[in-house]
Structure formats: C-alpha cells, structure tokens
C-alpha cells in the first residue's frame, strides 16, 4: 500500500509539472500573447513605462529563462502580483479563496455521492415498479439540465420568491460591520469543526459495523452520531469562543446551503443511474440468491450484500466525477457570486489578469489531482485486488 501511495504521489507531481508547463506556454509564451499585448506592444503606454513593465515582468529575457524563473517561483508559492488588483499578491488571493472552494467542493461531493448512491439503490430494488420511469426521466433531466439556468431558477424560487435563503455571495456584509474576526477565520473554524465531527461520526459508524449483533450495532451507530452532534453543539453554543463566533458562522452556513443543494441536485442523478445499473448487475449474482435462500431480510440482502458490491464501480466513477464537480463548482461560484477559485478564474480570465488566471487554473488543477489521488487511495482500500497489484 505504501509503495502504491508513493508511486501515485510521484506520478501526480510529474503530471502537475507537465500541466503547469503546458499552461504556462499557452498563456505566456505564445506569439502575441496577452501579457505582451497588454504591456510590451501596447502603443498607449509611454515608452519609458513600457520599458519598465518589460523589465519588471522579465519579458526581455529568453523564453526558457522566463519559464525557469516562473517554475522556481511557483514552487516557492510566489505567483507574482495580480494585474487588476495591482499591489495585491496572487498568493494572498489564492489563500483567501481556496478554502471556500474546497468546502463547497467537499460538501457537494459528499452529499451528491451519498444521495445518488441511496437513490440508485432504491431505484434498482424497485425495478419495474411504478415510479421507476418517472424517477429515471427526472434524474436524466436533472443530470443534463443547463446548470446556470437551473441555479438561477433555484435562486429565484428559494431566495427571491420565498425568501428562505440569501440570494448570493458569501456573507451578509451588514452583519459583519463590527465583526471582531475576519471571514476566513470564522470560515476555517467552521470547516474544521464540521470536518472533525464528520470524521468522528464516520469512524464510529465504521467501527460499529464490526459488531455482529444487530441491536448493539444500531445502538452504537445512533449513539456515535448523536455524540458527534452533541459535541458540535457544545462547541458552538457551550464554549465562549464558539458562542462569540456563532452568528457569523451561521451567516456563512446560511449562504452555503443553496449552492450545495443545487450542485447536489444536478450531480446526484449521474451517480444514481450508475448505481442502478451496477446494482442490477449485482442482483443477478448467485450470492444474492443464496442470501435470500438463507432467509435474510430483504433489507439485509439489499444493504449488506448487493449494495456493498455495487459500490465498487460507483467509486471508480468518482474518479471521473472529480473533474465534473469542479466544473460544476466553477459555474456555481459564478452564478452565486461565491468568492472561490472558480469565480476568480472566470473574472481573471475575462479581465485578462494573467498571473491570477494562471495561478487559479493551476490550483484548480491541483484540486483535481489531489481529488483523483484520494479517490484512488479510497478505491485501493475498497478493492484489495488493486492493493496487491500495486
């Protein structure tokens, strides 16, 4: 397993270097690229200023030297200065925006994956019964819906018409005027607590699955989840630091609901359809017949025998889904004005802010690579054949 992980890590770094090289040459070194158009050949800039810009951007150096400098700087986390928000460092912007995107991405990934798996499981089990066709068509409709349009309709319905949720953006500035914290402090605290509680719950549930008897198992699971919720509530309501931050955290959480819900609604159908076909194939296997013949309840056959096996191809699909969810994230952030990496990418690209565009694109690439890496590891854990082979 360790060898497998190390090999995958090395591959990942190599892939990233290739990726960064290609992007750099696309953005900086093509003849007549945007940076040169903007500074080096722009007749509206006085010659002296142009000369200074050329020297400061290193445009007078040979391409390969420029490339080497960029790479060295990149791996020292220095991505240059943003053109449009001039004195601001690109690395600061990325550091501010990256956690927001990761949270959106993670919550959406987990929730849509879980929802899709659950829905697909029931759909396969009820094959041929009423409602199957309707759910399939509805699922395909959601899967292929034009995402920005769907998101805008959701905003209109839930935010503008019903007024349940905020329309867009990351927080409500009115409430933050006298805030003693920066948004990112609150946000990271929120993220860490939610992550800790979910990891705790997942660990309890996984451990509880080892208990053989039905009753203590259920008891342990429910107890673990309840304990997680209690811990969470205790932190945000019970402790002094938590209580002080709570209104601000609540504000951010409120803004997070609609984007995550929309992202989930659009993506879950793909997983649902896949789980369904995977389940249908598993249900033909002999061991399902054996399980039924042993007199196990339908639920036990479905959840513990069929669904377990059907999970594997669905996890493989997660490898491909990582990129899809990131794409969805870019559109989500644009439509909801969620200030994350995708929004940065779109605005910097449309404003020709090349250092920022390159850095945000690279970080989106890194997110995709890391996502793939984690899914691969997860797959290795689920499927022993890969572990041995690797």
């Amino acid at each position, binding site marked *: 397993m360790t060898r497998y992980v190390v090999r995958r890590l090395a591959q990942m770094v190599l892939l990233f270097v290739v990726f960064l090289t290609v992007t750099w040459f696309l953005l900086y070194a093509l003849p007549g690229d945007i940076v040169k158009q903007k500074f080096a050949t722009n007749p509206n800039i006085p010659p002296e200023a142009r000369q200074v810009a050329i020297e400061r951007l290193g445009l007078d150096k040979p391409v390969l030297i420029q490339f080497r400098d960029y790479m060295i700087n990149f791996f020292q986390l220095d991505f240059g200065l943003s053109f449009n928000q001039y004195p601001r460092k690109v690395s600061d912007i990325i550091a501010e925006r990256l956690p927001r995107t990761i949270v959106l991405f993670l919550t959406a990934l987990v929730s849509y994956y879980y929802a899709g798996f659950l829905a697909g499981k029931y759909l396969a089990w009820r094959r041929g019964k009423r409602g199957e066709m309707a759910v399939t068509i509805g699922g395909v409709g959601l899967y292929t819906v034009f995402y920005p349009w769907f998101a805008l309709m959701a905003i209109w319905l839930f935010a503008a018409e019903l007024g349940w949720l905020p329309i867009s953006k990351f927080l409500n500035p009115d409430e933050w005027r006298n805030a003693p914290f920066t948004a990112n402090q609150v946000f990271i605290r929120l993220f860490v607590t939610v992550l800790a509680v979910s990891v705790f719950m997942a660990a309890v549930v996984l451990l509880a699955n080892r208990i053989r008897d039905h009753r203590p198992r259920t008891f342990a699971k429910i107890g673990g989840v309840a304990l997680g919720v209690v811990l969470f509530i205790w932190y945000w309501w019970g402790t002094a630091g938590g209580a002080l931050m709570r209104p601000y955290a609540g504000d951010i959480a409120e803004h997070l609901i609609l984007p995550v819900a929309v992202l989930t609604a659009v993506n879950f159908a793909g997983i649902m359809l896949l789980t369904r076909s995977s389940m249908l194939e598993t249900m033909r296997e002999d061991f399902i017949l054996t399980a039924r013949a042993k007199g196990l309840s339908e639920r036990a056959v479905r959840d513990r025998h069929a669904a377990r096996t059907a999970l594997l191809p669905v996890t493989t*699909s997660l490898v491909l889904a990582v990129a899809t969810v990131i794409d969805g994230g870019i559109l989500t952030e644009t439509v909801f004005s969620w200030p994350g990496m995708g929004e940065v990418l779109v605005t910097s690209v449309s404003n020709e802010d090349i250092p920022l565009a390159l850095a945000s694109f690279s970080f989106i690439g890194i997110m995709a690579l890391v996502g793939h890496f984690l899914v691969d590891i997860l797959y290795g854990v689920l499927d022993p054949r890969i572990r041995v082979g690797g």
Partner: protein
Amino acid sequence: MTEQIDVQPGSGASPDLPPPVLTPDAVPPSMWRIRWALFRRSFAHNWKLFRANRVGLVGLGIIVFFALLAIAPTVLFATGIWNSAVYDPVVGLEPNPPVKVMTVVNEITDPETEIDFRYVLLDNRIPNTVKVGDQVEIPQQPAPPDRRHWLGTDPLGRDVLSQLMHGARAAFFLGILAALVTVVIATTVGSISAYFGGALDSFFMRLADLLIMIPFLAILIVIGAIFEFKLWHLAVVIGLLSGFGGVAIVLKSQALAVKVKPFVDAARVAGGSNAHIIFTHIIPNVMPLSFLYMMFTVTSAIQGEAALSFLGLLNVRISWGLMIQLANNQGYLLQGLQYWWLLFPAGLAVTLISAAFFLVGRAMDEVVNPRLRKR
C-alpha cells in the same frame, strides 16, 4: 457518461441471422451489395431493439423536433413568411411593439401609470417636445407572446422564437462537429494504440489520463482567454479534448478485445498490412461503440457551449447560452414568471436536447451491450 462500457464487438448485429441469399446462376454480387444487405439487416434488427426502449424513442423524438426547428427559419425566410428585418435573430427589430400609455410627471406616485420627466428626456424613442402632464406611449420591450411573435420578443425587440431556432442550428452544428472530431480521433487513437501497444500506447494513454483529470470547463475558459473563440473552434477544441481523453481509453479497450479475435490473425496470415488490418478489421468493429460515444459527446459539447456563452467567453452570433446570458444580465431572470418567455425557452431547449442525446445514447448502449437489456 461515466458508465463503464464493455461490449462484445458487433454484438449489435444478431448472430443468428440467416446468411444473405445468393442466386446460384447469376454472377456473384459485388462485395458492396452484400455489405449493404448485411447493413440493412443488422440495422433493422438493431432498430427493433432500440424501439423496445421507450425512453430512447422519446429522446429521438425530441432530437427530430429540434432538427425541424433548426431547418424552419430557412423555409420561413425563403417563403417570405418571415421578414428578415423583423425576424433576424441578431439585428431584427419589431417595429410596432405593444405600447403602454403613461403620464409624464415630476414625482412618481404610481409607477404603473406615471413616468418620470427626466427619464422621458433621456429616452430617444420619445420626441423631446414632451411636457409634464402629457400622455406618452412607451414601447413595451420585452413584449409577451402574440400572433406575430409566438414566443414574444427579448429586451432588444428581437423575436425569441427565431433566436431559439437559430440557437438550435448552432447547437446541432456544434454538437455534431464536436462529436465527429471526437469519434474520428478517438477511434484512430484507440485502435492504433491497441494494435501497436508499446511506447505509442503508453504515450496516448498517459495523455488521456491527463486530459480526463483536468476540469473540462476550466480548460475551455482558459483557452477562451487566449483565442477569440468562434463556434467551430469550440467544436474542434471539445472534439480534441474528449477525443484524446476519456473516449480514447474506452475505444482502446474495445479495440484490444477485437485485436485478439481469430479473424485478425487470419488477415495477418493472409498478408494484410497493419493499415489494412486496422482500417478494415478493427475500426469497423469498434464503430458501434464510437457511435454511442458520439451521442454523449454531443451532450457535453452543447452544455459546454451554453456555459461558455453564459460566461460571455464565446464569440457567437446567437446561441441558447447567449439568450440566457442576456436575460440574466438585464435582470429578467429573477423577475419571476412575469417574463416567462425569456426564462424558459432557451434554458429548456439546452436541457431537453442534452437529455435527448443522452437518452438516445443510453438506449443505444442497451443495443450494443446485451447485458444491460431486461431479462
């Protein structure tokens, strides 16, 4: 699109078909006639399988509907039913929009019937001899559907139905071009790397790994920043990305299964060159699967185009994404159902046509992949 597809080559054709009847006395018919007869037979058989899937038929119906929509403007302009000054999707203008009579005032008390004097002075559609207290006719744009404009007009006074039809044309052009590029590249790359293996294979497969990992839309956005994107550029880029990406991997695994068949060995023993084997034995057997992936590529191409136009990164005359972008930028999308003719046609069109191609793809999947059929 993420489904794992594992197909027996040519399983779309029924294995128990009787051999084509050859009359003994005449000269043997040419190869092409036999091929044609076989093709017709397997097509009829596959059509029967396809027809069994109702969902696929629904998808096909939607595609035909949009194809008719795409052809319609040519007919309408040619027969003179539509005047291009009024119905052009980009520069058309309804000359006599519905008007609303409003009173010019200094202080608005009732926004439904009164209009600010300073606004009237700025509006060049109203003669500037107007005084406070006059009644003026304000043209209403976007106008709701009427007999002349079945889907109403947009904020600039252009016919929405005409835009929808031209958008359908753009979508078909883009989707089909992208799918063709994808399939040609993916089939060639897949077959060649399966047939030759070795370094060539590793190179193409690592390239594919890289391409499936990078978010599609992010690449398109970045490329859109560098080049001025026209519709066919976008189609070619989408075709290249998916042709060298995921589709190549799937088609390669299919080609690998074909490569080990006895008839490939037979062809080699008979002295067939590599090119001959690839083009006459491997590629035809990969074709059904390629065709299936064409459908999925159309879906992602149309979605990608709509998203790029929505973000304003595409240089295109008119498209569904652009229609939504316009409605959104001008603030009509959050106005609710009052402006439904700006809200629904384009959004539903993108959704429906993507769903249609996707459904047809799934139905075709059941044809080429017998394991998915109902027992």
